[in-house]
């Protein structure tokens, strides 16, 4: 039974260790500082152009800030999430402490979950620390609580998947350097490659909008699609859609910024796909973390399989909701 004991003392130990040293403090300062700098730059850029071109309303400036901040945080999250777990397993191997760990009563599952929970908690701490920067948006308005919730959900999904992905790379390579290389190579390929593929598809198909499936796994596109619905008020000014221009490079095939009525909620599909991928990666990580008899099936596998099955049933039950994000069904709010 001890193998399944997800006891809190392990987590507490991980939490205590995580905050030692300067890394956590620096990451916090960097995260909040970059968000503040992004907000300042965006405000400056908008204010500088306020007298020129299409008129901007206060609400639209709020939306520019909101979109810019959300994209900045999502970009930081995409790259920081794996980083907090990249060395979780590899460091134990590099220090030669993993074999020792196996001799302790702490089972591998508890060890992996502990690392994952710590990383996730830290990422949540980062999000919480960055939240006051969003107060600037309130200065201008234009954003609803639903918009905030949507962005928070996408950030959370990215965090969870990124953390598990980092753990997976760490367990696979058992070297921090190799894990970082593999992780970021795959990430850059996923983000850049999916947008590139969507562009190529569009080029060879008479500049038609590519299917949303091309960018379904792209976390930046998911955030872009979540932001598309943060629409400016219906105004009699032509500048109303101007803030959305920020999203043009990320929302190929997802939203036609000239007519937002047919924008697809890609982020829903991304969240469901991320949930599935996360579960599979977690399962693989649990096996890869073991030094020997890696692929022997245990009750943990059965539990994960059940979880996956449950997830699939739910996904099927709500297929209309999330497949709308892939353009297969009519979307909803």
């Amino acid at each position, binding site marked *: 039974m001890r193998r399944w004991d997800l006891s809190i003392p392990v987590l507490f130990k991980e*939490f*205590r260790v995580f*905050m*030692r040293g*300067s890394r*956590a*403090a*620096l*990451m*916090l*300062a*960097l995260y*909040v*500082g970059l968000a*503040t700098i992004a*907000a*300042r730059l965006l*405000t400056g850029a908008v*204010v500088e*152009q*306020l*007298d*020129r*071109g*299409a*008129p*901007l*309303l*206060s*609400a639209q*400036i709020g939306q520019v800030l909101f979109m810019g901040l959300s994209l900045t945080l999502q970009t930081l999250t995409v790259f920081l999430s794996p980083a907090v777990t990249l060395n979780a397993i590899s460091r134990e191997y590099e220090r030669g402490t993993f074999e020792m760990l196996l001799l302790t009563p702490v089972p591998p599952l508890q060890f992996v979950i502990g690392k994952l929970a710590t990383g996730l*908690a830290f990422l949540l*701490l980062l999000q*919480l*620390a960055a*939240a*006051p*920067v969003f*107060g*600037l*948006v*309130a*200065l*201008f*308005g234009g954003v609803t609580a639903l918009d905030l919730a949507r962005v928070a959900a996408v950030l959370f999904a990215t965090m969870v998947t990124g953390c598990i992905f980092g753990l997976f790379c760490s367990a696979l390579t058992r070297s921090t350097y190799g894990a970082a290389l593999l992780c970021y190579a795959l990430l850059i390929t996923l983000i850049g490659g999916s947008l590139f593929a969507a562009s190529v598809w569009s080029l060879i198909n008479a500049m038609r909008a590519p299917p949303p499936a091309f960018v379904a796994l792209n976390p930046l596109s998911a955030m872009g699609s979540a932001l598309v619905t943060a629409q400016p*008020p*219906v*105004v*009699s*000014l*032509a*500048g*109303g859609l101007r803030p959305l221009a920020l999203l043009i490079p990320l929302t190929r095939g997802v939203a036609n910024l000239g007519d937002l009525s047919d924008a697809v909620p890609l982020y829903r599909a991304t969240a469901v796909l991320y949930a599935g991928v996360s579960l599979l990666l977690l399962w693989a990580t649990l096996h890869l973390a073991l030094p020997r008899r890696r692929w022997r099936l245990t009750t943990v596998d059965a539990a994960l399989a059940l979880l996956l099955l449950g997830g699939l049933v739910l996904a099927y039950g709500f297929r209309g909701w999330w497949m709308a994000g892939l353009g297969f069904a009519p979307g909803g709010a």
Partner: protein
Amino acid sequence: MKRIITGLFIVLLAQVFWPPGMARAQSGLEVVAVPAFDGNYQPGAWLPIHVYLKNTGAARAVSVAVQLPNASFRNVHPVDLPAGAEKRIVLYGAMEQEVRSVRLTVEADGAVLVANELPVRPRINERLLGIVASADLRLSLPRRQDMAGEPFTVVRLPATDLPDRMAGLSSLGFLLLADVPTAELSPAQRQALLGWVSAGGHLIIGGGPTAARTLAGLPPQLQPATPGGAARVPDAPLASLAGASGPGALPGIRLTPAPTARAAPEGDPPAWVQQTVGVGMVTQLAFDPGTPVLVAWEGAPRFWDQLLRSFIQTSTPFGPEPGVDGYQENILAGALTATPTISLPPTQVIFALLAVYAILAGPGLALALKRFDAQAMMWLAVPALALLTGVVVFGMALALRADQRVIHQISLVEVIGEGQARARTLTGVLAPQEQTFIADRDPGALVRPLRAAAGQYGEVDGVKGDLAQESPTLSFPVAPWRIQRVLAEQQLAFPGVSARISIQNERLVIEMENRSDRTLHEVVAAYGEYVLRLGRLDPGARVIQVWPDTPPADVRRGETLSYLVLREELEAGRGPGQAPDRATLVREALVSAALSRGIISDEGPVVLAWLERSPLQVAVRAPGAARREMTLLVLRPVFTGSGAVSVPPGWLRPAFITGEQAPCAGIEGRGVAVVGDPFTLALRLPPGMGPLRAEALTLTFESTGRWPNAGVATLLYDWERRRWVEQDFDGPGTLRVADPAPYLREGQLLARFEGRIGEARCVYVDATLRGVMP
């Protein structure tokens, strides 16, 4: 059956004794309403409605309102009615639709006391001619059924009924005064006449023995000629205009044209003299328009058809209309979308707070907790600090949030002379919530919504609701996030600002004087391709500047003055990746509205200046809202000089206003399209330089196509001998005209090309002229 017949009889009696326009006493109130001009109106114009009110009940305050069917606004006139009071008011209805009846109501405390439907008649694409004559003047106008378009509708009105506001005349396209003692007109009526003409009306003044009486009370600008003694007026101009044999010499008077006026092309003494005033025209006839010979003349309908035409006519959604009001308002309404920059909240404090927070949340807390070896407390300390900072930042943000309302006011003030100006102020309001705004304004200003229009940055709608007249305040509801606008217009006193062009040392100089109490900013004088920057003119200041004798080298012919005046600002915003400054776009629209006519016209040099505040304010009460106010003053300098003068190149320029020649565009800018063989090219000096007697004239011809090396004869029209004179000219290039005086008359020069000139396609002409102003 008997009952039905009795009922019908009662209804019939009611119709006889209670005609439309008259409401029977109800609740002690008697109302009679009569639309001016027999209810005839031009859609888009104002229609005065004379309302008689008699209160036989208790004292009360009522509102008289007129509304067009399905219109979203009403024109309302508040009236105080003491017990037993009788009042006559003129309620102006903005006829923004083509309707056949309007609803007039008298209301008190929200209750309708009297309601009445008044029949009206829209006159779209018609010439509405008002006749004010002491006798029953008869004109042989063309019959409606004989015309292909623009038939005449005649309304007769006594001189006392002439509106005392120019807006009251706006439905009329033409007004004929014959044997009218204009000295008996009120000053307001005279000013209204001047304002109406300058806005595009065509005033015709009857001649004959009573001409002096008709002219006596008119403003000088409306007197194109000085009446002289009795004379027989040759019929050649009439015959020429009618394209038929004339009625024979007419009894009339000798007219001496003013320097700015042009006499009829043939005949001496002239049969009529015409003068442009603003975008309108005054025609002084030498003969009595009711002369029996003229009435009996078979060519009379064709003659009147040709003579009674607007100086400038522009197209509107309702069809062509005299003047340029609709055209200008469309430009200005579009400019309202270039809204002022919104009020910005102060962000520095919040950014400073966030910067401190970023340091505290990271290294700050870490270092502090490390001292106590309690780094793990970061898990609690960071959320606590984030929560505290978040509450402070959100609170500050909500407290510092700026007013999101935007008030945009643009005003065009055109000086029309006699110390009068015509001001039009467009006010656009944008608000995040539905709310009612209250604005302070001059009670004399007429206010109306404008038709929905599109501008560069979106659309604007007209305001809705009750628009009060003769009231110091105006209230109007505004829908959320829609720019809604209201137009106020008024003819008002604007004394003290004058501009004139005179001659010094054989050069033209412009002189500008500001004796008003307003500062004139960025004053420019402009004509053709010339823009003279006269700078700022403080109250009491005067500036004189010599007109350059060469046009700017880098300016193409026919470039718009709005571009030339604001060239630097506009160019600055048109670079790659740059957007134009919206304030500059509004200025461009104002200049464009002031000068462009939809067609190429040439009203001579113009002076433009920016005012800090419009003399016609619509001050919307919205403290904290973002505002921009822009006012352009436009005036036409008068010519006053005499003596020898070198006319700058480009002043004797192709005239397009007559429609006899069409413009064409080439690499050098705007030229004259070569149409037909022979091809006649008309050049004109600006109004006021008509009396110039030419002493030296050089014409330079260029073309986009190849100028034929043979087979083209060049002729100039000799006005004295009344014949074409062939010139020794092997074009393209320079033609020095020997003895040019006979070729220039009343500032007009005609050149004719015969033969293969069509190969030249588009002709550019420059003229260098020296002469003497008498």
